């Protein structure tokens, strides 16, 4: 009741003649006031899932308005903060997202924290449908003693650090140790290994943050071990990333032939993708690489972390204790079983790359804590009409951008089907951004529009140019806002 009064009061404010209201109307209300009463959809999360879902919704019906809400002032999610700096081609999708952001029926609202600044229920009142596309901002923990010691980082935070995620800018990883151990063998683990060992020349023209570049330039890390619970045939990375490790200059591969027993015989029965990946690994084992190479990297299989070891003073990580496993079963479903044997590895940098994890956004939204996703049936949130989900929060935090793209298209299709089947009541007019912007204003929250993000974008490219880089990302949210609203 209070909320409805608040909203009514807020809508009344828009019709007032104060300059504040006029600015409000210009920023969020105009589209709502002038466009026809077509369906209004709200998307929570401005990463690939959000933009691809928006894209498909805009294409499918000529009168649907789509609003994207994003917590940060800047859009694009993991395309900006997750994809490695030396993979700029993967970021080309930003071009198609930009077209969506500029679409006349789409409006982007950055700097809005859904769950805190506005609730899901408030959004559901203002829109015909709400799509949750907020991804996975947490990470799975190893759950072992010593995990909290200095020197131990999640891959998510390490990647966020070199990619300029504002909340990771004070990470200050200590790179003065010779050996780094990465737990997990997916593409994120390989990205971290590659960034740790790549020559600075390879990175200095990318959009890696300047502070990370300087830290890496002074890094003493020379050896990176990438550790997995199971065997070579279960490794989760893909061949492109493995090729990049094999081709790293001034670096040799340091593998344990014992880890590869029986693998050569299994090759002939493997499907092509797994076969080529395994063959490339075997080649790296055999050839090893130039002994004179200063740096080395290697996989270590059949090992699970059981404890992070601290030095004599107990103040920081100086090693990791690994339990040796044996494999039961074969193929993708093989399981690691303990043998009881242990192995200690000296190292000063430990990076846990065992998966991202979604967290609940709002008590009103169902959440499955075991799978860490929003329970849903083909993108329709369980027991909650008008609420949908797409991307990692829907299916779990795996897959490349193309996977998320297909998934987002699926959710959009289901939503449109529901519109056409009358499952969503489109006969009721919904106020959309007009009401939400007004509501946010009463709470002291102001959104960053897409055209304002473009000012941040231009500033970053300009700063980058003077440093010979693709861009120099702003690390501070307040700085971003200052430029956006200047």
């Amino acid at each position, binding site marked *: 009741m209070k909320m409805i009064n608040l909203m009514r009061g807020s809508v009344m404010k828009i019709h007032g003649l104060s300059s504040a209201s006029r600015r409000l109307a210009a920023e969020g209300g105009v589209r709502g006031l002038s466009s026809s009463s077509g369906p209004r959809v709200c998307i929570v999360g401005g990463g690939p899932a959000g933009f691809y879902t928006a894209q498909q919704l805009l294409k499918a019906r000529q009168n649907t308005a789509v609003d994207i809400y994003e917590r940060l002032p800047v859009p694009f999610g993991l395309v900006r903060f997750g994809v490695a700096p030396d993979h700029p081609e993967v970021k080309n999708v930003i071009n198609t997202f930009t077209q969506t952001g500029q679409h006349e029926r789409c409006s982007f609202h950055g700097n809005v924290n859904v769950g805190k600044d506005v609730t899901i229920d408030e959004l559901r009142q203002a829109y015909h449908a709400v799509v949750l596309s907020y991804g996975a901002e947490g990470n799975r923990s190893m759950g072992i003693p010593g995990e909290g010691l200095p020197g131990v980082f999640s891959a998510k935070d390490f990647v966020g650090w070199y990619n300029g995620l504002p909340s990771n800018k004070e990470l200050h990883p200590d790179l003065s140790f010779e050996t780094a151990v990465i737990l997990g063998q997916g593409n*994120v683990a390989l990205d971290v290994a590659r960034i740790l060992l790549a020559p600075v020349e390879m990175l200095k023209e990318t959009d890696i943050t300047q502070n990370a570049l300087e830290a890496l330039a002074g890094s003493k890390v020379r050896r990176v071990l990438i550790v997995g619970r199971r065997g070579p045939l279960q490794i989760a990375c893909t061949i492109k990333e493995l090729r990049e490790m094999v081709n790293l200059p001034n670096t040799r591969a340091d593998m344990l032939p014992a880890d590869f027993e029986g693998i050569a015989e299994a090759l002939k029965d493997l499907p092509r993708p797994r076969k080529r990946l395994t063959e490339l690994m075997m080649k790296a084992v055999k050839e090893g690489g130039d002994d004179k190479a200063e740096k080395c990297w290697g996989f270590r299989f059949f090992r699970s972390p059981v404890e992070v070891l601290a030095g004599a003073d107990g103040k920081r990580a100086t090693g990791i204790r690994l339990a040796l496993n044996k494999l039961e079963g074969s193929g993708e479903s093989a399981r690691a079983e303990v043998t009881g044997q242990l192995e200690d590895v000296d190292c000063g940098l430990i990076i846990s790359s065992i998966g991202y994890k979604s967290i609940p956004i709002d008590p009103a939204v169902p959440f499955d804590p075991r799978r860490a996703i929003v329970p849903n049936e083909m993108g329709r949130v369980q027991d909650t009409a008008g609420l949908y989900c797409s991307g990692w929060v829907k*299916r779990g935090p795996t897959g490349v951008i193309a996977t998320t793209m297909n998934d987002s298209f699926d959710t959009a299709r289901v939503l449109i089907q529901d519109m056409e089947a009358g499952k969503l009541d489109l006969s009721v007019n919904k106020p959309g951004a007009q009401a939400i912007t007004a509501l946010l204003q009463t709470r002291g929250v102001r959104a960053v529009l897409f055209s304002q993000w473009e000012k941040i974008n231009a500033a970053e490219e300009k700063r980058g140019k003077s440093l010979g880089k693709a861009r120099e990302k702003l690390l501070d949210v307040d700085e971003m806002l200052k430029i956006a609203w200047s």
Partner: protein
Amino acid sequence: MLAQQDSMAFRKCVQVLLRSSLAPLCHPGSTRAHPRFLHTVPRLCSQSQPNGSSGSKVLVHFVNQSGVKSSVFVTEGETLLDVVIKKNLDISGFGACEGTLACSTCHLIFEESVYDKLEPMVDEEVDMLDLAYGLTKTSRLGCQVTVERWMDGMTVHVPQEIKDQRGKQEAMRSK
């Protein structure tokens, strides 16, 4: 060691080309096979011939994810990715990485007789193709296939929409 250095130099060169987006430089001639490479260097950007209008017109049929067929006349020398973009064909999410061999969304399925006559794939194409949804024995990435006269009348498909299978398949892959 030398192969590694060449590979690095090549990659750097490619990155510079891509970043500077100098369209006229992305001419087939600029990516001729380097003597030390065993395979033809892959096409790494999507540009049609500068004098497209004088190339001959070839009829190509595209069948999209919903089974809808579009027939278009295309210019020799363009890649199939160029065609889908220029002709604005209704194929969802085609060419996400814009022809840089960093995704598999321009995946196309060819008729066997056509597939057998296509130029062989380089490792980088196979690497990405192997991650494509609905991979077949006659699959290629559209950004790597250049239209030639003899393709006149061919039909290419994208995988049909089968939601459950895709969900299960993709769940097995990692990032």
